[in-house]
């Protein structure tokens, strides 16, 4: 549910808590992760500009697209980048991540290389150093919002690019440091799940509090024979997909939501899922036993029932009750009914034993000695 994600990112972190972190996960069968990323980016930016969110600024760490792309994108969506108050900073890790251009310039080769100096972007030349990356993100953020208690958001373009240069444990360290920094309001990143091992995806999901995964509409097996008649349908369905979100809530439960999306011309729209194939969460249903515990009221009522075989405690000889109406005066009789219903307990408690004899016509001893009925 894109709305809830936007709300969660907008609301940010409580005091003393880690910042909410979102992983956007896609794969080659439905490669629209970047669309979701830009959608969230624009939503968050408009929230920041309208002062609806906890954060006052945004630091965008751009790995897979150039900063100018983002500026164009935001301008196209009607979000003014060059407004009076600076609210966005872009850390440019796209242009020269490993510092090669600098090295070339230094050694005199790249005279013709133009030095792009885009507005609002600072260059990062060494993405292998996670500490340096962390400190530059924090510095940029503090540059936007000042020194006080105001927070800022962080958006990382693509974690896969960082993972090319650094190990997963250092990237995990970076993400957890960012989350636990008390100036960061929320953080989200994009990851393509089939570019790395499963363990990397598991680590990213472990570090995040929300996981949004993008899946195709029909989960068909990879490499099955291409059905030529279904090709137009497949093509049509390519632009649609399912958007699943798992929220880790504070009470320890996981909220699972999903909706459908469709993409048209770089814009992505979300709509709620049509409930034809409801995914039934059957994985946790146990083979449970029945509830044999009693509630308090039930226990109380049970305690009040006088069982006929109990020790009456009165010192009188014990009479075994066998349902006949000829009983001692100790038990209070209801109005004598000829069908033989007798109530054992007349008071207001609900616990009663009602014994219905089959028939009262039988001779009194027929229970004990059934052979008397036989006529031999």
């Amino acid at each position, binding site marked *: 549910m894109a709305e809830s994600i936007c709300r969660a990112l907008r609301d940010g972190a409580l005091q003393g808590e880690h910042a909410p972190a979102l992983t956007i996960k896609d794969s080659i069968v439905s490669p629209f992760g970047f669309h979701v990323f830009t959608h969230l980016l624009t939503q968050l930016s408009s929230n920041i500009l309208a002062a609806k969110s906890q954060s006052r600024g945004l630091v965008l760490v751009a790995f897979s697209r150039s900063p100018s792309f983002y500026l164009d994108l935001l301008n196209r969506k009607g979000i003014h980048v060059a407004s009076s108050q600076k609210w966005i900073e872009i850390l440019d890790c796209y242009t020269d991540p490993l510092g090669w251009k600098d090295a070339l310039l230094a050694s005199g080769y790249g005279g013709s290389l133009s030095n792009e100096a885009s507005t609002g972007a600072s260059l990062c030349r060494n993405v292998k150093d996670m500490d340096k990356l962390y400190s530059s993100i924090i510095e940029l953020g503090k540059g936007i919002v000042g020194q006080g208690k105001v927070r800022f958001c962080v958006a990382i373009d693509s974690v896969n690019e960082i993972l090319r240069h650094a*190990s*997963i*444990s*250092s990237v*995990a*360290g970076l*993400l*957890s440091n960012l989350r*636990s920094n008390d100036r960061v309001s929320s953080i989200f990143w994009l990851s393509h799940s089939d570019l790395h091992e499963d*363990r990397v995806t*598991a*680590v990213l*999901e*472990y*570090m995040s509090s929300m996981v949004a995964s993008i899946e195709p509409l029909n989960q068909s097996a990879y490499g099955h024979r291409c059905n030529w008649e279904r090709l137009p349908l497949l093509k049509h369905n390519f632009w649609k997909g399912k958007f699943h979100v*798992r*929220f*880790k*809530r504070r*009470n*320890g*439960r*996981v*909220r*699972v939501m999903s909706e459908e999306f469709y993409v048209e011309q770089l814009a992505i729209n979300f709509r709620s899922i049509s409930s034809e194939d*409801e*995914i*039934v*969460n*059957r*994985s*946790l*249903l*146990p*083979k*449970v*036993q*029945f*509830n*044999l*515990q009693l509630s308090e009221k039930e226990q109380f009522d049970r305690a009040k029932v006088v*069982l006929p*075989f*109990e*020790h009456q405690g009165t010192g009188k000889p014990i009479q075994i009750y066998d349902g006949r109406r000829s009983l001692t005066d100790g038990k209070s009789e209801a109005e004598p009914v000829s069908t033989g219903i007798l109530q054992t307990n007349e008071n207001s408690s609900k616990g009663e034993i009602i014994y219905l004899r089959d028939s009262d016509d039988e001779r009194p001893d027929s229970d004990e000695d059934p052979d008397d009925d036989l006529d031999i």
Partner: protein
Amino acid sequence: MKPTTSKSTAERGLYPLPIMASPEGALVVLFHMLTFREVALSLLLLLGSLSFLSYWPDVHNLWLAGVAGSREPPPKSESPASTRSTKAKPVNNNIVMATSKPRTSSFSRNLATVPSSTPGLKYGPNGTIFISSGIPDLDKILGGGFPLGSLVMVMEDAEAPHHMLLLRNFMSQGLVHKQPLLYASPSKDPKGFLGTLPTPGSSKDDKSRDRDPENENGLRIAWQYKKYFGDNQYHFDSNRDVKHEYCHDFDLRKPLEKHFISGQHIDCVSILDSPNLAALRDRCATFLAQFPRNDSSISSASRIAIQSFCAPQCKYSNKEWDMVSFIRSLRSMVRSSNAVAVVTFPPSLLSPSFSRRWQHMADTLLSVRAIPDEDKEMAKLLTGYQDMVGLLNVHKVARINTQVPVILDATTFSIKLQKRRFLVLESLNQAPIDSSSGTSYGTSASCSGSSKTGTLDF
């Protein structure tokens, strides 16, 4: 004189004397097959073996008493009297019979009736000593608590922080009992976690949860059998001293009072920045060296709590063999000391073969799992779904001094917070099936999904 027909043994064959059979059956067989002299001999042998058998449980008890230190000697005075009485009576009577005098059976287990001098330790059978996990229900499920010298591993769920609840209760219980604690975590400042430990709730007002619902004082229906009851109802209440309870109920909303934390032997270690595990191993070794296990009486037990051991931000987290060897050495160190170590780890971050290795290393293996929120299917199926925060599975229970495993009735429990404060584990109960639908849960009317058997089972 009548010639005695004495056939040679070779002709008759050797009849094996049925030692364990019932005396009457043995008598019948004997009288039919053998001569009178042989019958008399075999009867004497039978009596001798049976009297030996009635002594034998006492021998067993004596051995246990020797192992576990000071214990009351078994009721030896009764059994010779009983065998003497059976020898005097004719053999036709049953050896084991209900006498009018209530005698405790010589097969009774000798649980320690002497209260332990150190609070926080409980003596169990087979010479094991338990310390409390901090959660009363978990102690009950595990048969007394965590045995000293065992390694407890808790498998986390990446989506829920329930392992923190278990760790917090474990650590708080240790601090309340003044047991030294070593805490390691992947955060930069582990000491901060101590501020989130819960305080013991007041022990008086929540005895509404009956500890032993089956322990009724009398029998209601079979009251005629009351006169056969011995006095074996004592050991339920022996450790119920209010001040030094074995296991406290912790109120998760209130933090632990300062006097429990200050002045205590608490070590906090951050495992975030260490490139290898040598430093942690040294810390554990020095900590555990203070509590060696020997035959003298125990002064105090100690606790080790390691949180999220393979957390990805730790620098050693990609060295899988190093982590396995650390766990193995930790287990061996704990085994030879009076300590319990609790290690939590998220198994999804390990490769499957290593996850299996870690699970095999554990003496007690628990796992916590998250439950989906606002899941209508689960709400219909389980009672008390609203209060549940998660699920706890017990995979393995430590049995150190015995070969008899623990077989639990149920291995899955729901974690609930009673009154939002106290951690309670309950076994799962199915909600009553709606009478209108009338179908079992497998084919419920509203869903069309396949009825896969769940990963939870009983």
